[in-house]
């Protein structure tokens, strides 16, 4: 049995609109027209133990809503899901003791207290033994390089340090499933990298299952072999990140440095001009004709330097967002 099984999960929210101005506010006091938004529609997938799955999608795509349903925070309006064999929204104690959710924009540590006080509170809430508690805090604080900061008030820590403390708090009870909702949001590049490395290591060591949402491509590329792309509440891609481009990817990117300027008309023979910056030119060329075109370019253009690249993965993803194409 898969550790996470999701079948046709749906969530509909109701909301209302308000025009600009006080008049409409007064009108709204008496009558509000209910509108409905289908935040998640018929989402289905499974996740196996030890997998790291990335959830990608534009803002409002339904990623966080899906995570919130899988962690039992909100009820779905349709479909079914099990995590570790439990229906999350039944909120069983045994289930809660085996998973963790970390939300980059929310914190669970007491603001005015040193982190170790909050960790101790979590120890009691999760019924972690003294010995395990000491070992885990020791290990995680060393891995994340925050051992010396445990006694400092949380509000005096930097965002990156605080997030590391949040992670320790979330992993204290050794969860089998971890949901990460934008865990690196707002962090500098170094902190982002450190946290990514940490999760990579933690996943390998403990075989935990991780579902991650992030807007930072590097998070997904570094950590997740498999990516589920959600757009407008529906799954539009489920598979290896590296293969996303293959779906559309009929093109390659050629970057050349010229020794003298060449007219656009000459360049257009080989492909679509993406960028011209002095003597630096970027062209997009058809994959099938790549070999022939490159050979011809080298023969006929004054080329000093030359690189051949795949279309950036972001472009493939953007294309999926736009086209909403579904791959089985």
């Amino acid at each position, binding site marked *: 049995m898969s550790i996470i099984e999701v079948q046709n999960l749906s969530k509909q929210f109701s909301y209302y609109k308000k025009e600009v101005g006080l008049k409409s506010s007064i009108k709204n006091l008496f009558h509000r027209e209910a509108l409905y938004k289908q935040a998640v529609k018929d989402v289905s997938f499974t996740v196996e133990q030890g997998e790291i799955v990335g959830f990608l999608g534009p803002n409002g795509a339904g990623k966080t809503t899906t995570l919130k349903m899988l962690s039992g925070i909100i009820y779905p309006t349709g479909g079914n899901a099990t995590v570790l064999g439990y229906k999350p929204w039944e909120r069983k104690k045994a289930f*809660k003791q085996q998973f963790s*959710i970390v*939300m980059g924009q*929310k914190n*669970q540590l007491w603001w005015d207290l040193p982190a170790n*006080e*909050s960790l*101790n509170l979590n120890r009691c*809430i999760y019924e972690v033994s003294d010995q395990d508690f000491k070992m885990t805090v020791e290990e995680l604080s060393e891995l994340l390089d925050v051992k010396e900061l445990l006694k400092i008030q949380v509000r005096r820590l930097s965002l990156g340090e605080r997030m590391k403390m949040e992670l320790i708090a979330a992993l204290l009870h050794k969860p089998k499933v971890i949901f990460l909702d934008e865990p690196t949001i707002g962090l500098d590049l170094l902190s982002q990298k450190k946290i990514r490395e940490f999760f990579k290591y933690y996943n390998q060591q403990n075989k935990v299952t991780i579902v991650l949402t992030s807007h930072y491509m590097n998070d997904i590329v570094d950590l997740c072999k498999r990516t589920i792309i959600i757009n407008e509440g529906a799954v539009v891609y489920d598979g290896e990140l590296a293969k996303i481009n293959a779906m559309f990817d009929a093109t390659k990117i050629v970057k050349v440095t010229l020794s003298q300027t060449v007219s656009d008309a000459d360049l257009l023979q080989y492909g679509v001009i993406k960028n011209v910056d002095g003597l630096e030119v970027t062209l997009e060329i058809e994959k099938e004709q790549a070999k022939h075109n490159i050979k011809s370019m080298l023969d006929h253009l004054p080329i000093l330097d030359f690189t051949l690249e795949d279309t950036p993965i972001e472009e493939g993803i953007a294309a999926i967002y736009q086209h909403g194409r579904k791959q089985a």
Partner: protein
Amino acid sequence: MSQLWKGTKRYALIYSLFFKNSLIALMEYRINFIFGVMVELGFIVIKLSYVYVVFRVGENINGLTPYNVMLFVGTFIIMSGIYSALLFFNFVNLPELIRTGDLDTYITKPISLQFITTMKSIDISFAVPNIIGGIIVVVIGWNQSGIPVNLSNLAGYIGYLILGVILTYSLFLLPQLLAFWTVKTNGINDISNALFDFNQMPMTIYNKLVQRAGTFLIPVFLLTNYSPLFLLNGLSKLQMVWGIAAPFIFLILVRLLWKYALKQYTSASS
């Protein structure tokens, strides 16, 4: 049974940590703590001014001597201290947790959500002056009313006080649960606070209709009136039983409504 004992022990331990953590946090802001105490002392003076008025007039109110009235006012001050120290900030914060979606993290904890959200913050700067001040007023009233200090009187007084705390919890949490639907509850808060203040004076000063409504419909008079009434032999058998039953009935009611309300929770945008 052992499971229940284990659970109770665990919750007691967690509550002691809430207490400890709140105390540590409070001590971080010494000036704020001192101001809190000063504000509360001011409120006590206002509450005591009612007693002063009673003494100035020097007449009995519906059979209650001014010293009897002190028992009621003192109990009200103690309860105000307990309410504002243990419950008030948690209750006020609940709509905020719902509005901002901060309830999310609490929901995922393997502990009663109602317990953690309604008991987490404790502010003793409110409790200290009120409880000490209230006890002094009660002791004077008790002594001067010539009520014997024996086990049954003490047990009755403290017992109804504890029942009053349970009822205060239930009665004032109920309107806050509306936040699951309406998100903000400021309007209801004002009404709740006004109802609580009905106890500033003994319930016997109100007419029979108000007394009945405040006993059975919205039992605000049970919060602080029954302890002194017990001492003054002013409780009928029905009132004695109702005073014990009502807190538990309302506790069950608030629990059921809590569970229902939680299903309405939609969280907030991330």
